[in-house]
């Protein structure tokens, strides 16, 4: 992935402003970290889908069920990867995991649990 054709400085500033610092997130309790990531996902989805506010994004539903498609997934995955410095693929974002479940996944990966995945009823392997 290269950044040669995009206004990279603007993009980097944008994602820094949008996401909490990954080191600060690691330092807080797990549930606090999850809530913070959850809010970031809600905000980004609302921006991507041009919703009037993040309140319109339900934490208990998958992104796909809230109108996210491929472009939205690639955008949000890129922002999450750059902002939180953890790996998340667009395919993972478009599975049946709810916003909260995705936040848990990302919170685990922030701890360095790189192989973290969801296996429950709403999990990524369903």
């Amino acid at each position, binding site marked *: 992935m*290269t950044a040669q054709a*995009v206004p990279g400085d603007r993009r980097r500033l944008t994602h820094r402003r949008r996401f909490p610092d990954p080191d600060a997130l690691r330092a807080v309790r797990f549930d606090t970290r999850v809530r913070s990531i959850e809010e970031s996902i809600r905000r980004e989805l609302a921006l991507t889908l*041009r919703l009037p506010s993040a309140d319109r994004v339900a934490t208990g539903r998958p992104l796909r069920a*809230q109108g996210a*498609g*491929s*472009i939205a997934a690639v955008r949000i995955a*890129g922002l999450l990867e750059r902002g939180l410095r953890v790996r998340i693929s667009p*395919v993972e974002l478009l599975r049946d995991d709810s916003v909260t479940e995705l936040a848990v996944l990302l919170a685990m990966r922030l701890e360095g649990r790189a192989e973290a995945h969801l296996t429950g009823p709403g999990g990524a392997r369903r």
Partner: protein
Amino acid sequence: MTVDQLDVLPGRPGVLPGRRIAAPLTVTDDELQLWMLRRPWTESAARPLTVSGLDDRERERAASFQRPQDRLLYVSAHLALRRVLAACLGVHPRDVLLGREPCPGCGGPHGRPVVADAPFPLHFSLSHSHGLVLIAVATHPVGVDVEQLPSAETVDLCTPSLHPAEQKELALLPTGERRRAFTRLWTRKEAYLKAIGTGLSRDLSADYLGEREGPGAPPGPAGWTVRNVPTGSRHSAQSDHSGHCAAVAFRSAQDHCCTVRRLPEDSLYADDATATGIVAAVEPRVCALLPVSRALT
């Protein structure tokens, strides 16, 4: 047209054992059929769509949508798909058995959608976005994608995931043209990824789907033809969010004659037999090679 009338229509090799309907819609070898449907944002309370023609998985998915307009478009798209496939197969729409090919990457049951019991090669692809549904039907693997134009910021954020040559092409464009060019490119890419069955699990930078062709251009996917499809949205594409781009990818090294049909909205509300008759009666509006470059969309 009733089921009994359908019985006497000229048959094709698609009459299923035990079912009495002859397929009224023929898909010839190397033909590419595109079907379009436009839907309003809201559903008439006096004329609700019924989901009884969908299978359990489709109904579950329809129920999962948070916004009514997303649910309406999903239900419309899948009813439309079933009506078109039913007309090709000679079965009732609710009897079209949809399944998934194995994923070409991991072998899991989430590859390209297929008709599970088609008695002859029948491939299809479905895409829908913001009021527009696009369906492709062919005897060879095919993929379609339709997208609403994303914001300029989204274009900036997604462009780094593309093939390096695609990024360069977009960077050379004036800012005002970049959103549309990106969306045209994106739909070509996603149509191709759907056609090969990988979807987004394949690296978006792995294949060149840019506008350039001929000597000096990076090679595109070998054995595939990928073209943008006119959507009729151009009038609104420059000034607001409602413009669409669309594309189709089909397994052939040559352009095909492509028929484009507008699916009548009435077919969604009609009973199965009547709907099949409506679909079969639609005349193709265009029969032409799809445009190679940026015309017509």
